[in-house]
């Protein structure tokens, strides 16, 4: 058995309890997402709130189901680089639409 697996095997019961808790949290947050949409908030508020809730849900999946909370440094480095490019990718159209300083 690798040390990686041995570490996991020791507290696997604790992990399972966390998985169930995260599952319950994800279900509650899904209901919250749908409930908030019923208020028909202005678009900017609705987008902000929906993205905050989705980010919390996504973080729970990534941290606990994908074990990112206890991952090695190289994986964090790969993901940090990905996040930088991802944000740039999303920011480009926003800047374009709002007449960014280099686009006229």
């Amino acid at each position, binding site marked *: 058995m690798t040390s990686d697996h041995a570490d996991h095997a020791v507290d696997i019961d604790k992990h399972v309890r966390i998985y169930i808790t995260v599952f319950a949290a994800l279900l509650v947050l899904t209901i919250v997402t749908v409930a908030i949409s019923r208020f028909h908030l202005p678009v900017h508020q*609705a987008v902000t709130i929906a993205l905050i809730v989705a980010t919390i849900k996504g973080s729970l999946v990534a941290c606990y189901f994908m074990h990112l909370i206890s991952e090695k440094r190289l994986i964090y480095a790969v993901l940090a680089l990905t996040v930088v490019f991802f944000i740039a990718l999303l920011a480009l159209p926003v800047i374009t639409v709002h007449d960014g300083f280099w686009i006229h």
Partner: protein
Amino acid sequence: MDIPYTVELRRDTGLNNGKIGIWLFLASEVMLFGALFASYILIRTGSPVWPRGDTILDVPLATFNTVVLISSSVTMVMAWASLMRRRFGTFRIYMGTTILLGAVFLVVKYFEYGHHFHLGEFPSHNNFLALYFTLTGLHMLHVAGGMAVNAYFWGPGAKLWKTNPEWFINRVEHAGLFWHFVDLVWIFLFPTLYLL
């Protein structure tokens, strides 16, 4: 010749090669979906009017599908946890449930798509539907791909458990990372397309 570092950890990275490989692949997947989300932002903000998703799409069905996919993520991680506890029978039950939940997700999408096609609402109908079909279509392909991999590990691929259980656990973990990523994408697609 054996494939190196399938089980043992590399000294330089502290990881097995499969783990690095799947995370690099997922990084590329983030950029693929990122490009489509960027297209969504560009097209939506550039349009004078944009419909609310719930006026065109079926929110209760999509909410049901969200619960289905979240549940499948839990059964997937429980399948891996079962292998860590050396309970192969329980692994089979959880992995089988994961595959079934994936199938339920696709069947629901089939009915959603069928309803739109019946009404003559195709991707060419408007920008909203073009984005809806592109984003959900690509996501469905990922669900189908994940199901195929999971089915392999549930069936013929499970033979590895008898000869090299540690490698099998790693492979299931990596398949699980992909499956959770598919769930993660849906978590953002659901509010973006259906609720805003």
